[in-house]
């Protein structure tokens, strides 16, 4: 595995000067992922913050071939490119030993919601590709509307914390588990807060042939209402409270990784959810005494999910 010094010497494939917000988690994730591999990469991205901010014509921040098609089809678009790569190898137009890695990026809107059909189809068909969701838990590009990835209780512009309803009323869809149910050769959950874990996972995925899925938590200062310099801290706390466990599923075998593995082994402390919640304005109303019961119920649900994952990883 590449160490920090080696990573720092690699060429940046997502250049600076793009128009993502200061402190945006998405660009950190993409940069880390592209740094994690030395293979040539062809990337796609769904419509969203990442796409609009990195490709404002006539500029592009991408130093590898890149395609944006539409909102709901990042996975299938890259699957078409990957199929063409195989077809042209078959006809001898591309040398048989040529290696290109195909990576599709999408936000939670483009992945959990409008793009889930395209994603599921591409994974089922077995294309040799990695899909990466940068999950910032809402439709940030259109102005922080709720998605099916938005946390229970989070305030968004379409699930505001009102006098009657305290933010989003539903738990987020567990997309990582949905993808694990596709029985893919590699499924992982990662956080830019624990970047070596993330990089290790990308390196591993790049050596596995077939469809791979990685779900990453992407703090969004604007939408989550935290300071611009807090994304990494928040991304760590999400793991530390076991809201966003680090794990991987390799050929159906679950394993906790990094910090989450240490927490399960009792070597690191599992912090209370409230320590994560209180760092973000979107959860501010949950700290009010009248919502204590609601917050407690979220902690209970979270514990249940964590215990289930720990058990799965012991199988």
């Amino acid at each position: 595995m590449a160490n920090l010094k080696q990573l720092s010497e690699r060429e940046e494939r997502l250049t600076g000067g793009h128009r993502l917000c200061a402190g945006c988690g998405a660009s950190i994730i993409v940069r880390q992922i592209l740094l994690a591999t030395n293979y040539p990469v062809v990337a796609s991205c769904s419509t969203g913050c990442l796409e609009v901010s990195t490709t404002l014509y006539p500029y592009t921040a991408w130093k590898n071939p890149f395609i944006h098609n539409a909102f709901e089809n990042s996975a299938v678009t890259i699957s078409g490119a990957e199929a063409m790569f195989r077809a042209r190898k078959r006809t001898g137009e591309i040398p048989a030993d040529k290696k290109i890695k195909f990576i599709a990026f999408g936000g939670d809107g483009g992945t959990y919601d409008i793009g889930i059909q395209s994603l599921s189809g591409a994974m089922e068909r077995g294309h040799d590709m990695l899909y990466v969701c940068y999950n910032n838990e809402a439709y940030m590009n259109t102005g922080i509307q709720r998605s099916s990835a938005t946390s229970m209780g989070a305030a968004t512009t379409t699930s505001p914390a009102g006098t009657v309803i305290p933010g989003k009323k539903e738990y987020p869809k567990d997309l990582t588990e949905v993808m694990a149910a596709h029985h893919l050769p590699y499924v992982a959950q990662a956080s830019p807060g624990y970047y070596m874990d993330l990089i290790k996972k990308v390196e591993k995925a790049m050596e596995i042939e077939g469809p791979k899925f990685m779900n990453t938590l992407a703090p969004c200062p604007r939408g989550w209402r935290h300071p611009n310099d807090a994304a990494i801290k928040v991304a760590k706390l999400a793991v530390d409270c076991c809201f966003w466990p680090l794990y991987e599923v390799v050929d159906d075998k679950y394993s906790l990784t990094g910090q989450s593995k240490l927490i399960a082994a009792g070597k690191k402390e599992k912090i209370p959810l409230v320590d994560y919640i209180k760092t973000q304005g979107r959860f501010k109303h949950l700290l009010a005494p009248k919502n204590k019961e609601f917050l407690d119920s979220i902690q209970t649900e979270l514990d249940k999910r964590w215990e289930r994952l720990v058990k799965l990883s012991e199988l």
Partner: protein
Amino acid sequence: MAKPMAISGNFAAAYSTKQINPHIVAAYPITPQTLMMEKFSEYVANGEVDTELICVESEHSAMSACIGAAAAGGRVITSTAANGLALMFEVVYIAASLRLPMTMCVMNRALSGPINIHCDHSDAMGVRDSGWIQVFNENAQEVYDTMFQACRIGEHKDIKLPVMVNFDGFITSHKVERVDVLDDDVVQDYIGKFEPMYPLLDVDNPLTYGPLDLFDYYFEHKRQQVDAMQKALPIIEKEMKAYGKVSGREYGIMESYHLDDADYVIICMSSTAGTTKFVVDRMRAQGKKVGLLKLRLFRPFPAKQIAEQLAGVKRIAVLDRSESFGAFGGPLFTEVRNALYDVNDKPGITGYVYGLGGRDISADQIEGVFNKLISAPDKMIGDIQYLGVRGD
């Protein structure tokens, strides 16, 4: 050399696709397109093609996969109909605006609702402004031949646009006809090797496809698409003609049938042109000066050529197999009438909407249209009539 086969339009589309041997076919099944995909899947399963077949989970994904594949650099073919094309709508525009050559067969079928599986042209007309070249075909032979022309046209360096090969659902897609097929090597020589332009797979020369394009550049890019369409028209005429040297079957962007001395003319597209030819023959035998203008190329619309063809004609009926709700006439009628605006001594023109949802159109009905043209008063009012519908 060429040999005759007794095959359906769908089979002709599949067989020509096999002979093209494209890098990628991505499609989703929909009636009446399925038989093409099933036949082609057999070719893949039997190792008769090099094609990577992508059986996607929706038509939206079919076109999206085609876009990714075409951008990667290679020959790409898909097919669909009706609701499938409607589901693709968003990405049909994107394929054209990214200037990605590919071919899509559309076995024209009525759009829902109510759901109907039979022929009309509402599906293709729904995407007539999408930037695709649209060719309408009368029979299986035309479908077969147009598939090869589509490669040459769409991939031409001055065009770089996707091509839609339309033919009538069930009527042409399922009817078995004689089709004269070419040898594989003749096809390959004609279409030539695919030369990718700016392929995504060229990792040493990375580029970005599909950037955000706002008020400062979007309009120029749209203007370039307009230019490509305008440049396409003479190239398409040339390519269709040149195909005659390869196959012995020369095509034009339109076909004139007894038009030279005709006073009364029907304009229509696809299989109805075949029925109209039969009626023209029957009425010519009675000494009536009737004729047909069958339009093959609908986009880019050959307005000037149509005006030239119709100079000196007394009266015209335009037959539309789709409705444009709230418009003054069907899409073909409005285009043809528009094309005639600058003609001196304008012919009288009337429009008919017919055959929606697969409603049969008979030779007698077409003869009735001609007879109405013949007996109409000198000053015809361009109104719209409905052919073969209850209550009209």
